[in-house]
């Protein structure tokens, strides 16, 4: 009898050991470290002083917005739903992407899908978009004057916030904190480890209760000041509703070949000429928004409970006729409401769209006051 028992021992011990190993592994992922204490202003200044201009890493994005599960055909990248479908697709489920960065003008992003991949490559003025699922490439040559603007965009944030005065990152951080203090409490949370690097956690908590956003937490690398993860938690929830984080990061310069792209033989290549500086390549015809009669957005409220309102014009009928919208929204007095953990969208019957990180009642009130 004892011998029988002994022989079943491995069958008990092995699963226990593996389970324990998996648990230890999981707990190490969220391991805490003890970094020298810093104030919120100091951590903000670290972001400003950050000098990382080359990296290769893996980003993981997860969304749990409480939206109903969508059929993959409706949200797939190659689907006929266009930009709306692609945007919705990013809001549901999770994605893994690899990012390569070398200086301000060379970037490659690879979104790793199952048995497929979507690439965006920028090499100086050359921009390529490639999707392996439909073997299609889009080529854009950015206007010459745009490149230097982009180049300095990161560096000049401090100049933009305070025209005519260039402060040190520390000063800027102090002033920025003072500016947002009436609406937001900024604290330094517990030190964490993200992608194997120790990081300070900057937590932004809205002071108003009129918003769906519970808190925004940013992990800031303790060595370089590079933000390693951003998580948005909805009010009253423990798990983040939206999170994007590095799972692996390497700060050495990626090989130059990573940014060179030649469309593969057999691929369909589309040349896009951007005539608007802010043309979004995916939207197809630049200026289509004006064709559809979409007006200028107006913002009511400020800070965390701001509501953006936009007359939709013709686009409203396109939206309300979409079966996807039917599936996502529910009818309410005066329109249709899409509710998610972080964002509420109201499409009114008279052709306006209201968006805000607020409960639906506030959107309805904002729609009614106009």
């Amino acid at each position, binding site marked *: 009898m004892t011998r*029988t028992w002994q*022989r*079943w*021992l*491995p*069958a008990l*011990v*092995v*699963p226990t050991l*593996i389970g324990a190993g998996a648990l230890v592994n999981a707990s190490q992922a969220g391991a805490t470290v003890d970094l020298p204490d810093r104030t919120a202003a100091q951590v903000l200044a670290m972001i400003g002083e950050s000098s990382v201009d080359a990296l290769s890493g*893996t980003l993981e994005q997860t969304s749990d917005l409480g939206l109903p*599960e969508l059929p993959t055909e409706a949200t797939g990248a*190659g689907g006929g739903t266009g930009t709306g479908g692609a945007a919705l697709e990013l809001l549901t*489920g999770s994605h893994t992407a*690899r990012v390569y960065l070398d200086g301000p003008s060379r970037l490659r992003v*690879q979104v*790793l899908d*199952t*048995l*497929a*991949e979507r*690439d965006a490559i920028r090499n100086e003025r050359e921009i*390529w978009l*490639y999707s*392996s*699922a*439909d*073997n*299609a*490439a889009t080529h854009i040559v950015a206007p010459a004057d745009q490149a230097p603007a982009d180049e300095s965009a990161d560096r000049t944030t401090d100049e933009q916030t305070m025209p005519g005065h260039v402060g040190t990152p520390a000063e800027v951080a102090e002033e920025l904190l003072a500016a947002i203090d009436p609406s937001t409490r900024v604290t330094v949370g517990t030190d964490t480890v993200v992608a194997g690097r120790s990081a300070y956690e900057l937590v932004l908590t809205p002071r108003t209760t009129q918003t769906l956003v519970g808190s925004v937490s940013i992990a800031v690398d303790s060595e370089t000041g590079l933000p390693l993860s951003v998580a948005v938690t909805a009010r009253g929830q423990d798990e983040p509703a939206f999170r994007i984080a590095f799972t*692996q990061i390497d700060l050495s310069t990626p090989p130059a070949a*990573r940014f060179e*792209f*030649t*469309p*593969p*033989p*057999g*691929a*369909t290549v589309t040349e896009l000429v951007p005539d608007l500086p802010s043309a979004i390549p995916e939207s197809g015809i630049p200026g289509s928004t004006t064709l559809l009669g979409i007006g200028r957005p107006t913002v009511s409220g400020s800070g965390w409970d701001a509501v953006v309102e936009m007359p939709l014009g013709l686009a409203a009928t396109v939206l309300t006729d979409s079966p996807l919208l039917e599936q996502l929204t529910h009818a309410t007095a005066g329109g249709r409401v899409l509710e998610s953990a972080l964002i509420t969208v109201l499409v009114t019957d008279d052709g306006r769209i209201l968006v805000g990180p607020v409960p639906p009642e506030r959107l309805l009130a904002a729609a009614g006051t106009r």
Partner: protein
Amino acid sequence: MPSDLVVRPARPAAGWALLSSELSVLFRRRRTWAMLAALAAIPILIAVAVRLSSSPPAAGEGPPFLDRVTQNGLFVGITALVVSIPLFLPLTVGVVAGDTIAGEASLGTLRYLLVGPAGRVRLLFVKYAGAAAFCLAATMTVMLAGALIGAALFPVGPVTLLSGDTVAVAESAVRALLVAAYVTVSLLGLSAIGLFISTLTEVPVGAMAATIVLSVVAQVLDSLSQLDWLHPWLFSHYWLGFADLLRQPISWASFGDNAALQAAYVLVFGALAYGRFVTKDVLT
């Protein structure tokens, strides 16, 4: 391949003799050859169908990579693997793994193979090694048949990876071998499950069916998003992750995750099979 495995240099130790006899029995069976032939037929059917059809498949049509086949015959093997991973490969592996112990038990040959408790452990190892060798043979059959028929019917040239970069034929052959290795590793967990189920019964068909049903159940569970906490623990979760080897640069993360997961399955079900088999009364 199969013949290489049979003529493995045999040391005088009884374990190696047992292994080489197991492999020669396995790869001499008509059933094994029939299954390998059926697997080889998959890429051949795909290639011939694409070759004979009047219009080449458009991008995004049919199974992944199908539209690449007409441009480059080397994709036939990959397309065939994508097609055979959900059902055909688990089916054949389930037959071999489910037959390991139960087959000998039903034929009444099991008691002759066993001398003492140490003999039982050795027999388990040898049986599992045989099943693992079949996993490799099955995957390589699909890959090689695909490469050969693709090279015969379509042009062969630089291969376009998922990232849009192209690599030369030589590197694409290395990538294809890596993919075959990945798929072989993916099937090891299922083989261990089959080995364990095979120790539970003396009816080999029952063990085979149970193993195949489990592989289907795991894939169904993997497609239910409500159970996403369970997904990383399902042995079929990384089965299609071999695509990460077709990116530029290669993403090794899923290879590592898959290998770790399969190793855990092999250890757990190996231990269970040990517990069951060494305490089993095979003599009556």
